[in-house]
Every structure is written in C-alpha cells, then in structure tokens.
C-alpha cells in the first residue's frame, strides 16, 4: 500500500495548486457623479474595433486587411491601454456603440456599431456585459469617465420594402425606356424605373408598391431572417411594429442652403418640380445664378428627419410617443447596467427637436435618480449650418453638440488652409483669416428665433460647475478636428505643423475638446473607412512628437484652470493672411476666478507673426509691468506694456500660453 501513497500525494498536490477558481459575477454598478465640471474634461474618441485587440477569443469574422471588416479591437483592449490613455492626459472616453448589430451588409461589417439589431444586448465582438462593466469600473478608478455612443434615429437594415410584393428582396425594374431613353424602338415608350427594395429612394407618401400595372399603394415591409449574420427582426420585440418606422425610403436630398436663401419663391420653381406644383409645398427652388434647381431647406429637413439613413438604415418614427418612450427605456438600461457618464447621440439632425426635448430630460432625471448628476448628452448633427446645430441645444434638448461649423470654418479653413492665403473678392473677411474664430464665437449669440443661436439657458437637471451653478450649451460645445465620419485632419491638410497648431487652439479654447484616437500618432486616413486605422499598428508609442505635444497641452489645460473654465475674450484676431506683421495671429484670453491665461497662436505657415499691426499692439487685461511667462515652452517671458499692451512674436504655426508669474 505504500506504493499508493506517492501517486495520491502527487494528485492531491496537483489539485490543490492548480484547480481554477470560481468567480462570482457582480453585475450591480455603483453609480456616482464623477464629473465636477464638464469643461474640465478632454474627450478621447475610440472606435473600439480599431483600438486594441485585448482578447482574441472574441475575434469572429476578423479580417484586418479589409478596412470594412471587423479587426478585433475590444473592450479588454481599452482596459489594457488605460495607462496610455491616462498618459496622454485625456479624461473621458467616448466609445463606439456597444449594442448588438447586424453583422454585415453588402460586404461591409458592423465593426463601427451603428447598425443596431438588439438595443439591449452587447455586441459580442467586443466582450460581454461584465467586460463592459469592467472597462467602466477600471476607467472610473482612474477618474476617467466613459461616454457611450447611442443611435436613436434608426436601426440596422433589418427589413426591406416589398415593392413588387413577391416576398423577396429584389432590385426591381419596370418599363423598357422609351425613345428618349436611348431606345430606337418607337413603340417602346415607357419610362425605365429601377428601385432597390433594400434601399429605395425617398417618397413622401411612403415607399410605394409597384407592378406592371402601376403603383398599388404603400409597399409592405418584410423583416429578414438571416441569423447567420444576425439580420433578424429587432429586439426588444416592440421594435418589430412596422408603424414604428417612417417607411419613406432613403434620404436623397442633402444640400442645405444657407438660411438666408432658403425662402421658396414660387416664381422660381423649376418646371419639373412636380411635388411643388401638386401639393403647394416648396420642395425646390431655382438657383438662377447657378441655373440649377436646389432643394428647399424645409424639404431637406423633411427628408433628413423622415428618410432612411444611407445604407438602408431604417428610420424610426420618433414623433410617436411610444417609440420615444421605448428608446428612453432602452437607453436608461445602459446607464443603469454600465454606469456611463454621458451619451454621444448619433445622427442628431435626422430626428425631430421634440424627440430630444423628451429624451434628454428623461435621461437626466433617470441618471440623477441613480445618483449620477452631470449626465451629459451631446449630439452629432453632421452639418456646417451653425443655426441647425444650435437649434438642437434649445429648450430641454441636448446639453451640447459637436461644433461641426467650427471644425469646417476655423479648424479647417483657418488652421488647415490658413496663411499664407488669399482673401477672395466676395469675402468681407478672408475665410482663412483667424478673425473667423472671433466671428464664430460672436455668432453663438446671433439671433435664432428670438434667442441666441446656441442656448444660454440651463437645462433642468443639466450640467453644473463645481459649485452647482448651471452650465449652458454655449459653454459646452464639443470641439474636434476630425472624427470617424470625416477624413483625418492630416489627410486634408498634410502638415504636422498645422495639425499641432490646430490642436493647440482646440486644447486652449473654451468648450470640451474631443480628440479622435490616433491623432496623437499622426494618423492621416482619408474618408470612411480609411480614417479608422488600427491603433495597435503604432505600438502605442509615447515618444512621438505629436503625442508629446498633445500631452504637454493636456497637462497645461489641467494645471491652468482658466484654460479649462475661463471665459473667452479675443484680444487679437487678425484679418490679415499674407505678409502683414500680424497675419495669422489669433490671441484670446481665458479668464476664470481672477486668473488669466493668454493664448497667442500663429496660424501662418511660413513666417513668424506678432501681435501688432502698424502702430497698434495687442491690449491685454494684464496690468502694465506684469511679467508673463510662456507656460508652453516654459522659459520665454514678456513684460506687459502701458495699458496692458503686449507685443509677442510667435513662430510659424507656433503657440504661446502666457500666464502671469
């Protein structure tokens, strides 16, 4: 029997040392208010699939060679790289949508997360719910907040319009095309019509069925059952009610003329504008100068709001209270189970203002009831129309929007295409002149229906500062140079100096800066999907010049309170764009709690410029004789002259951040 003892002891030793442990999963989250003042935050946008692959076990249908496929990034990957994120100095993560998606459509995968199939299930490509919770917990433990990207406008392409009523999705053709359509057959007189039942074009009446005998009423919609790609009817099941969708087909009209020219003049209607003639609405007007017919603003808005988003993303009828209430319910769920600190709301301009005036207050109340104040919601209205952007901040709508107009007019025109450049004859101020920044700032208060363009009225239960004083949308605009929907800054303006100059402005101006992942690594991808590069290809290096540049700015923003919370006061915004002494100079003070930080930027790409023109120098609020130090380079000092004048020279595309010693 002694021979038995050896194997017994070996077996017991093995078992004792190596038995895997059991794990209790705690799915409850402690909700708390982490944000003291949203102006303190710097957002870092992460497209989860492209950031870091921390868990190959969830790599399903991954193909890193194809830009439109899943690449393997996941929530574990973000957890693994929190050190990097923290080192960069950003304070809030905006992560791409987490819900379960249609896997693919027309050869494109849903790696981005915007093709919802199930509003309440996680996308298994990124992990499970407990992993998502772990990400939020780990981030919160470092005082990094997490914002969730949500889509309330549409679902994925889960149904088709059965236009020919044959019960299968087709590309349908009717008619043969008459002599006027290239045919030599004089008897072939019918128009050739083509429609994709997946994605037919907009029809105000609703997508119409059609047979060889003509139209036959609204086309029924058919849910698809393709479980292999998760193209199945949506969840929760309430979303399977066809009446919950507008069913008008895809948006085809996008042009949004300036508001000054949107008036519709009946006498200028194009002859072929049948819709105008039939129902009296003005859908188009003639741009006689260009001799083309343009859609009216109202018509564009109608399509944007009621049409399917391109790609066949089916538009929810969010004018219905039941739809609104269900969307409120499903997104309250995510606040509860994952303790998010805010929402980034997709396709804002494709929904009615009234929807957000119900949705946003309900979410604020709910978050507050969980113990989370300062729940922040900002939306994406992908549009350069400042009025349209601002309109969504009114009343009890969203707390903020992406400052798209500023991205185009200032970050693009001034910092991307800035001096040396030319003033065009029709311009009062050159579009590339720094003065544009001041103009845009002042236009935030331009009249919009009797109030400021961007709301200056606090929201009920809305964002507050550290003392509990309300913060208003004008103070909280989310600034950005680029994102996943537009080409990278460096793609449009392939100049590292200009990128860093723009970053310097973004990280020293008011609002909440949002940095798209990879900007700090000089990513230069073109339009979607090329602008969604794999972050892991960089090795997460922290010794690159742009990384260090951003890092230095984020640290300054954190350490100098006026750079975060201060009011903006422009002290020099040059209109000059060529060889003038101040060409390219933009200078503004950030004033907060008796402190001042003066930021002087030179957007000129070729010469040093200074804060004077002719015999006029910049006047600051610093008392005469004050010595100010450049906090950015850490060594330069300047002495303020009489009446607060200060003449500072800044190298091409340089920045000075001056604070009193």
């Amino acid at each position, binding site marked *: 029997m002694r021979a038995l003892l050896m194997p017994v002891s070996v*077996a017991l030793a093995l078992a004792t040392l190596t038995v895997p442990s059991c*794990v209790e999963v705690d799915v409850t989250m402690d909700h708390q208010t982490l944000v003291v003042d949203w102006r303190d935050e710097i957002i870092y946008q992460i497209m989860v699939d492209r950031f870091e692959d*921390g868990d190959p076990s969830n790599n399903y249908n991954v193909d890193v060679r194809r830009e439109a496929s899943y690449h393997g990034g996941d929530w*574990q990957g973000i957890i693994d790289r929190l050190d990097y994120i923290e080192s960069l100095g950003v304070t809030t993560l905006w992560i791409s949508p987490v819900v379960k998606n249609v896997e693919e459509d027309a050869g494109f995968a849903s790696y981005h997360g915007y093709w919802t199939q199930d509003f309440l299930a996680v996308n298994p490509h990124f992990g*499970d719910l407990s992993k998502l919770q772990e990400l939020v917990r780990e981030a919160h433990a470092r005082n990094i907040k997490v914002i969730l990207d949500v889509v309330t406008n549409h679902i994925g392409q889960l149904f088709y319009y059965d236009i020919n009523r044959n019960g299968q999705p087709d590309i349908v053709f009717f008619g043969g095309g008459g002599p006027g359509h290239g045919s030599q057959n004089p008897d072939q007189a019918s128009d050739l019509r083509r429609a994709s039942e997946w994605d037919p074009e907009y029809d105000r009446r609703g997508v119409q069925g059609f047979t060889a005998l003509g139209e036959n009423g609204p086309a029924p919609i058919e849910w698809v059952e393709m479980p292999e790609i998760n193209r199945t009817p949506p969840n929760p099941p309430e979303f399977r009610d066809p009446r919950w969708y507008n069913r008008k087909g895809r948006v085809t009209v996008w042009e949004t003329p300036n508001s000054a020219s949107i008036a519709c003049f009946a006498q200028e209607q194009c002859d072929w504008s049948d819709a105008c003639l039939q129902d009296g609405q003005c859908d188009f007007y003639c741009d006689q100068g260009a001799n083309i017919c343009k859609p009216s603003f109202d018509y564009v808005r109608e399509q944007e709001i009621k049409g399917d988003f391109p790609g066949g993303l089916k538009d929810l009828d969010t004018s219905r209270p039941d739809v609104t209430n269900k969307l409120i319910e499903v997104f309250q769920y995510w606040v509860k189970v994952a303790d998010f600190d805010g929402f980034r709301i997709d396709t804002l301009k494709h929904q009615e203002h009234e929807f957000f005036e119900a949705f946003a207050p309900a979410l604020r109340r709910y978050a507050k009831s969980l113990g989370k104040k300062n729940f922040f919601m900002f939306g994406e209205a992908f549009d350069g129309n400042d009025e349209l952007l601002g309109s969504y901040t009114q009343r009890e709508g969203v707390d903020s929007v992406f400052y798209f107009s500023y991205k185009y007019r200032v970050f693009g025109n001034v910092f991307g295409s800035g001096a040396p450049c030319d003033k065009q004859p029709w311009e009062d101020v050159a579009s590339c002149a720094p003065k544009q920044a001041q103009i845009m700032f002042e236009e935030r208060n331009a009249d919009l229906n009797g109030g400021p363009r961007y709301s200056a009225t606090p929201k009920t239960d809305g964002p507050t500062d550290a003392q509990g004083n309300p913060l208003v949308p004008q103070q909280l605009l989310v600034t950005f140079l680029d994102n996943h929907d537009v080409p990278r800054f460096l793609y449009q303006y392939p100049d590292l100096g200009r990128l860093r100059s723009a970053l310097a402005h973004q990280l020293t101006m008011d609002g909440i800066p949002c940095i798209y992942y990879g900007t700090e690594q000089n990513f230069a991808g073109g339009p979607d999907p090329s602008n969604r590069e794999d972050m892991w290809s960089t090795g997460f290096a922290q010794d690159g010049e742009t990384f260090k540049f951003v890092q230095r700015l984020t640290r300054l923003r954190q350490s100098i309170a006026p750079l975060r919370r201060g009011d903006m006061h422009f002290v020099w915004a040059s209109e000059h764009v060529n060889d003038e002494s101040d060409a390219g100079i933009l200078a503004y003070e950030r004033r907060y709690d008796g402190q001042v930080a003066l930021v002087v930027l030179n957007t000129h790409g070729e010469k040093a410029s200074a804060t004077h023109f002719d015999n006029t120098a910049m006047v600051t609020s610093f008392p005469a004789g004050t010595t100010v130090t450049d906090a950015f380079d850490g060594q330069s000092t300047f002495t303020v002259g009489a009446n607060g004048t200060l003449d500072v020279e800044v190298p091409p595309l340089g920045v000075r951040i001056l604070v009193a010693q």
Partner: protein
Amino acid sequence: MRRFAWPLAAGLALSLAAPAAAQETSTRNAGSVVPSDPPPIETVKDRHWFGSYGRIGFFADPDGARGTQRQIVAFGPRLIEDNYLELDFGYIPYRGKEAQVRALITVSFFDQLFHYDGKADAKIGLRQAYVEAEKLWGTGAFAWVGSRWVRGNDIYLLNFWPMDELNVVGFGGGWRDGSTDLMLTFALNRLENGLQVQRVPVPSNGYGAQEAELLDRQKRLIAAMAEKRYGGHDGQLGLKVRLYSELHHLPSGKRYYGDSYTEFEPLPDDLGFVAGVQFGAWNMPGPGGHLNLWLRYAQGLAVYDELGTPFGLNKDRRAVDAQEFRLALAGNLELKDAAVSLQYGGYARIFKDADVNEEDFDDRQEYAFAVRPQLNLGIFTPAVEASVQLSRPNGLNPRTNQQQVAQVTQLAVIPALTFGDLIGSYTRPQLRFIYAVSLLNQAAMDYYPIDDPRSAQDLAHYIGVNAEWWFGRGGGY
C-alpha cells in the same frame, strides 16, 4: 509561463517515472476494472473474429416529435443518445515463439439510418486500424502501429472516460504482465480545423490552378501510463492504481489570409499536458462490483482533448493558460441475492479557457451524477435512472446577462429484456423501452437561444425503444 512550468514539470516527471507501457484495457464494457486479457491464441479456432458495439432505436416526445436530450454539461446521461454502431474486424496473422500478432479494424457509423431518414448515405469513421505484436521474444513486451483508441475505464452512465481516452494515429509499446502495465504512446494528428491545415488553390505551372497546403502543422502527442494491480484473483478484492500523463505540442505556423498567398498571420506554437491518477477496486463488495475514482488535471492545449479545437485563446493566440480539473467516481454493485444491480457515476469538472477574462461564460464548473438501479428478474430487467446535471458558468449568460446556475434533472423508467449468462448491469444485449422526463430550471432553459422552442420548455418527455449490445470487443486483447 512560470504558472505553466510547475505542472508541466510534474507531468513530465510522471511520464518519466512510469516509462513505457501500453495497456488497452477498454471495451465498451469499460465499467469493468479488470483488464481484458487476450484470449489464449490456442483457443482461437478461427483466426478471424468480429465484435461490435451498438445502440439503435428511436425516441419521440408526446407530440410525436423526435425530441433531443437536454444536456447542459460536457458529458451528460447517455440514455437518450443518438444511434451509434461500431464494427470490429480482427485477424491473427501470426503466432509464434517470438510474438503473437493481431490486426484490428473498427468502423464506426454515426447517427444516420436509411430506414429512418430515407437517405442512402452514412456518416462513417474509420476509428481503429492497427497491428499489434505482443509477447515479444516471449516476454511481456508489446508494440503497435496504426490508428486506434487508447483508453482506460469509463463512467458508463455518462459515456465518459474521465482520465484517459485518446484517439490517435501513431505507435506505441510497453510491457504488460499479470499485475503491471506500462505504456507509451506517440501520435500525430492534423485536424481539419483551419488551425492545423490550410489548402488554397495556386496557379499551376501550366494552365489552371492546383491545390497547395500553405499551413501544415501536426499536433504531437505523447502519453504515458503505468498501472499496478494488487489481488483480485478468484473473486477476491482487487486494487489498482494508475498514473497517467499526456503531453501535447503544436508547432508554430502561418495561416494565410483566404485570398492571399503572401499575407499571413503567425500562429505560435502551443503546449499542454495532462496528469491524472486513478484508484480502482474490483470484486467489491463482491464479484461484479467495482469502484473507480479519478483525479485529472489538464493545462494548455491538452485541455481541449486531442480532437478538439482550442477556443478562448490568450492574447498570444495560445492555449497555454487554459485549465481543466476533473474529479470523477463510478461504480457498480451486483447484489446477487437480491437480484439487484446498481450502477452509478458522476463527476465534477472545472474548466477555464486561456483568454484573459476572469468573468467568462465559457469558464465553468460542471457536475453530473447518474444512478441506475436495476432488478434482475431472469431476462426481465426493469430499471430506473435518475440523473442531475449542474452547470455554473463564471460569467453572464449573454442572453440574460445574469450569472445563473443551470440544472437539469432527469428521471427515467427502463423496462428491459437482457440476455446473458450472468445478468447484471453490464450484461448485453438489451432490448429496452425508455420513458424519461427532464426537468429544467430557468437557467437551463436560458442556455438555448430564445427562438429555440426548448428555451420555453421546463419539462421534456421522451418515449423510446432501443437495443444496446456489445460483444466480441475483447477478442483482440
């Protein structure tokens, strides 16, 4: 790696401490702990022999549907398993002073019956085809080459070999005598799972395309077993202890992207091992009774078994962090005076895959236990069977986002006719009627997708008949 190194060393030590032995003990009647000795060659009148295992029949639920068993653990009760057939064909080509040689071929047919589904087709597996020479030079040494299974004792009621079961192509050898078995097995496999082999069409030198294997990596296995038996002769109590170890190794390779001959992802090499011990007793409490207890630990590649495809890999795309622990028990009582037989068996299994996730639905503890008392009233052998399956994942069920303990309890009544000289638990053939009912808790129902009807059924009934047999399986040993 250090976490891996210690058990690996232990496994190697076990292997080296018990060098070289091959003992194929098992037949389908593997509940017996008595190794099947080869029949004396002299008594084989015909050098050919035939053996078989089979279970053939059908089931229906009360609605007349076929019904499927509710199994939530890796190895559940076998009572309602699919049809299955094995055919053994053996031949003794040589017997002499230097050796006795036999060849064995086993063909398996998986669940597909022409008279049931109307398809003139079959799922066939060639499982065993090997030649073994034993009593080499008049000693206990033996050697074999070919394709075969190498396995020990099972838990019959769960159709589960808890410690040692390998299906291999390779060679082996060892020593066997009346009280000692030593075995070493060397094997390779190349599973068609995309991780070990990849074929793509490439331009031929002339016209058209021809197939090329761009990925070709074979898994290497080494298994070592040592068993010592004490007593057990003439109906006396017998005891045994068996030590068992496996090493698995997969070399590195490159997997090319589907439509590219130049772009590839590297596949690192991988490693794993098994270390286990079995304690057995037979003729306990009397003839026909036995008790086996197993303890088995696996790590890395070996966790997924030799024919399994690793999943839940770590960030290096390796399985080295995967772990599995098994504790199992099986036994049988033959109370001849009371004409009662009692089979039982169960196991606890803890599994953790190699990925980084601590909270992981794939990682779990499983428990299964089954007991089958049987009355032996001549050839009429009514039995009942009770079983329970428990599964406790370490993560959230993705359907419910809850951590749930799933349970399936099954009760069965099995009136049967059994034919044999000594009727008992392991006597076959058996013709049987089966009524079974499975009770599922909500967590078990939630294992099924919401659109699967089983996700809404907390009760499942099965009515069926089948025949089970085995014979001639030990003829080759």
